[in-house]
């Protein structure tokens, strides 16, 4: 079941971050971003769907993508704490996106050669989508960090707030044999972030106490309300077809 758990963790990361991004729909600071964020949310939710479907088959207990997404409670979700963080201001959202994409792009790159054909297939699509997400979020982080006094203040505040959640990206799970090592992604992630922070004039704070626990189902208070909203319709009409 190690592989089921690992695929479920990945699926949860993508669904939760995709849902968070979709919350911006209709509220973005400009029309182009109002299109960009739901489009990126679609990438993430599309990836989550394939991963949930795969996890359901690995488990073999008859749970499909909807059962896994809509009928598990907060303690059963295994996503990173980073992706459940509330949107905050636009700077927080872009930094959260950058941290995640800068990890996933090299991760999927390593997964391209996986012996699990579903994982390799997902990786083939996602590696290109994550490259775009890095570019989109990276450009905003640089623009805001290297922008006005106010935008630089807010961008640095986002870094200070979210940096403690970065370490969890590298937390090792059980050995699956078909998924890449998360620790092996660290140099690529650190290089991307350092290059962008350098251009943006941002400083990464030193973190004494990394925030972890998501993989054990120990979440912040923000995830429960998000899941309650996301799952309300499905739970109100269990088994309904549309």
């Amino acid at each position, binding site marked *: 079941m190690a592989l089921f758990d690992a695929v479920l963790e990945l699926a949860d990361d993508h669904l939760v971050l995709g849902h968070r991004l979709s919350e911006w729909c209709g509220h973005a600071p400009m029309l182009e971003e109002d299109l960009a964020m739901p489009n990126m949310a679609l990438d993430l939710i599309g990836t989550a769907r394939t991963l949930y479907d795969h996890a359901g088959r690995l488990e073999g207990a008859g749970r499909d993508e909807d059962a896994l997404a809509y009928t598990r409670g907060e303690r059963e979700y295994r996503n990173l704490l980073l992706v459940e963080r509330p949107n905050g201001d636009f700077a927080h959202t872009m930094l959260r996106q950058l941290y995640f994409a800068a990890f996933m792009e090299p991760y999927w790159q390593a997964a391209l050669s996986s012996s699990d*054909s579903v994982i390799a*297939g997902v990786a083939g*699509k996602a590696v290109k989508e994550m490259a775009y997400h890095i570019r989109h979020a990276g450009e905003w982080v640089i623009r805001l960090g290297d922008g006005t006094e106010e935008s630089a203040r807010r961008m640095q505040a986002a870094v200070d707030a979210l940096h403690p959640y970065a370490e969890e990206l590298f937390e090792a799970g059980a050995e699956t044999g078909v998924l890449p090592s998360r620790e092996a992604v660290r140099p690529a992630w650190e290089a991307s972030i350092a290059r962008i922070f350098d251009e943006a004039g941002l400083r990464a704070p030193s973190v004494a106490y990394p925030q972890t626990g998501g993989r054990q189902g120990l979440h912040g208070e923000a995830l429960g309300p998000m899941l309650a909203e996301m799952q309300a319709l499905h739970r109100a009409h269990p088994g309904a077809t549309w």
Partner: protein
Amino acid sequence: MVAAARAWEAASAVPDPEVPCVTVADLGILRSVEIEGGVAVARVTPTYSGCPATLAIELAIEAALRDAGFEARIERVLSPAWTTDWITPEGRDKLRAYGIAPPEGPAGKAALFSVPEVTCPRCGSRDTTRISEFGSTACKAQYQCRACAEPFDYFKCL
């Protein structure tokens, strides 16, 4: 005509629901159609992870095969991943004639702050400017031609 060729003909004529000037074969989404145990099996590769048109495309291909008298099944093939490199030369011509600039250059990673140079599908000028990274669908960006002033969609390179 052999059954497999007839099935391919039926399936490959299905238009893309979001860009109806091109077929699923022009886009390279329809990978193959084979007859397996009397059933026409169409293998389809989705364009983007979250492309909302994926299910509609699969249903349309299945319906086209049934209309042609086949029992049909669709298989979704994820690997290798679809790329805009798979759009056929005819597909690119059809996009251009429809007013959509086809993807330019091989699919690859773009650098920060880079904007691809795109040729106006109406007058052929290279003097164009990007208005928005996203257009009417997720796979398109909006450009405007400085030479003829025409706004147009650009099918992004992926």
